[in-house]
């Protein structure tokens, strides 16, 4: 079974290459569906495959650049990308990512990088999960109230978290209209939001989609589908920049990134097309569930590193959980894609076939 393992020329370790392709496929599906690079899955996934943390982050970001580029190309054709917003946010993202990357190098030097990254992940994931489910709960409550009072004005859901309305009242010039996203706000709002999310991305070694996707929805007021596409465009830029800097620091295993990209190229198409068949709030609910699963796995890892007596138990539990999470979500999205595609093709066939035949 030696042929199933490939020697990584830089990290100097043999790696199970079908595992890299499957990881790329799963992350490609999930990332392009939720609008993120998928660093929160890839970094632990690479660790499970035996990569040291230093190489895992760089390799992850490098693969993410290619994966998100494929997804952006697809989302762009659906009209899901607001390029103007994406380009403006790049300013904040790049400076934020660089600040975060410098900070992580310092932490690595004092030897606290693993624990810092895991605690950071955990706090962030808990906050995002809380935000998403509070929003969904508020939206459903509002929708029910409108239904019972007979005042339902629109078919699409509304009434969830509306922080963006308050933030849009900040009128610091210049003001900008983002036509595709349908928002009008101060240019400083997307710049400051992207700096904050970029900084977090640099620290945690992720593309930033996990933070930017909810930030785009809740802080900027971008519709879910546009948030997914625009976020992926942002991930391309920040991940490419991250790939350059991490590689220049010698932290990238290029071969692993290329192998993962093969799986991701298929996954990215499936995930992007699946967004055609799922409503915006549906995407948010499953995004929240994914975040909870990820938080649990990080918590297990944290317990394992803190208590030597239960290390192997919690390490294994974290690995199993993250694999189940990636497999479960990817399968769910794939089934949605299949169901939607089948219905679309059936509808098209019925429209084109002659009446009575």
């Amino acid at each position, binding site marked *: 079974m030696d042929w199933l393992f490939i020697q990584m020329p830089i990290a100097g370790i043999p790696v199970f290459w079908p595992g890299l392709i499957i990881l790329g496929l799963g992350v490609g599906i999930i990332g392009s569906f939720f609008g993120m690079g998928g660093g929160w899955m890839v970094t632990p996934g690479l660790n499970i495959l035996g990569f040291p943390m230093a190489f895992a982050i760089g390799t992850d970001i490098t693969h993410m650049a290619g994966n998100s580029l494929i997804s952006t190309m*697809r989302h762009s054709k659906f*009209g899901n990308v607001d390029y103007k917003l994406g380009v403006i946010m790049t300013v904040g993202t790049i400076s934020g990512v660089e600040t975060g990357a410098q900070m992580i190098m310092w932490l690595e030097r004092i030897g606290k990088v693993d624990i810092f990254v895991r605690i950071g992940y955990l706090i962030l994931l808990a906050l995002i999960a809380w935000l998403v489910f509070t929003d969904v709960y508020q939206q459903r409550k509002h929708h029910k109230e409108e239904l019972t009072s007979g005042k339902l004005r629109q078919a*699409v859901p509304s009434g969830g978290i509306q922080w963006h309305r308050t933030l849009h009242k900040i009128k610091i010039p210049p003001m900008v209209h983002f036509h595709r996203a349908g928002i009008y706000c101060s240019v400083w709002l997307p710049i400051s939001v992207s700096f904050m999310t970029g900084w977090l991305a640099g620290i945690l070694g992720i593309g930033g989609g996990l933070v930017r996707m909810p930030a785009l929805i809740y802080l900027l007021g971008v519709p879910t*589908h546009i948030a997914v596409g625009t976020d992926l465009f942002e991930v391309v830029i920040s991940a*490419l920049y991250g790939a350059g800097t991490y*590689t220049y*620091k010698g932290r990238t295993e290029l071969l692993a990134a290329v192998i993962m990209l093969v799986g991701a190229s298929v996954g990215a*198409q499936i995930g992007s*097309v699946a967004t055609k068949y799922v409503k915006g709030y549906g995407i948010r609910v499953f995004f929240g569930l994914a975040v909870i699963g990820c938080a649990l796995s990080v918590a297990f890892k944290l317990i394992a590193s803190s208590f030597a007596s239960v290390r192997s138990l919690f390490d294994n539990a974290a690995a199993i959980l993250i694999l189940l999470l990636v497999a479960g979500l990817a399968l769910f999205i794939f089934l949605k894609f299949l169901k939607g595609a089948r219905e679309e*093709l059936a509808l098209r066939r019925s429209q084109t076939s002659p009446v009575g035949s």
Partner: protein
Amino acid sequence: MRFRVMKWATRLGAALLFSRALTFGAGSPATSIVFVADSRGLTGWRAWVTNLYNENLFHFALLTVVLIPTLAVILGSITNFLLARTGINLKSRVLAEH
């Protein structure tokens, strides 16, 4: 009220300044950690990639940022072509919702 806002703004400013000072000030010593790949026993393109990594990280980084997007465009175009053959509409999305 104004005093309280000022106090919090000062704290926030100090925290930001402190974190930035830490990050920028800490950059250079960490970069002195050097990874060396073992190219002994490697042949062909693997030996070339490993040697490039060991000899010139800038060129290796340049290769990475050119190779990954190029491969992504090629692989993306191939999978896009295959998906289009299934007959799914790949040019528009009907659902629109906040």
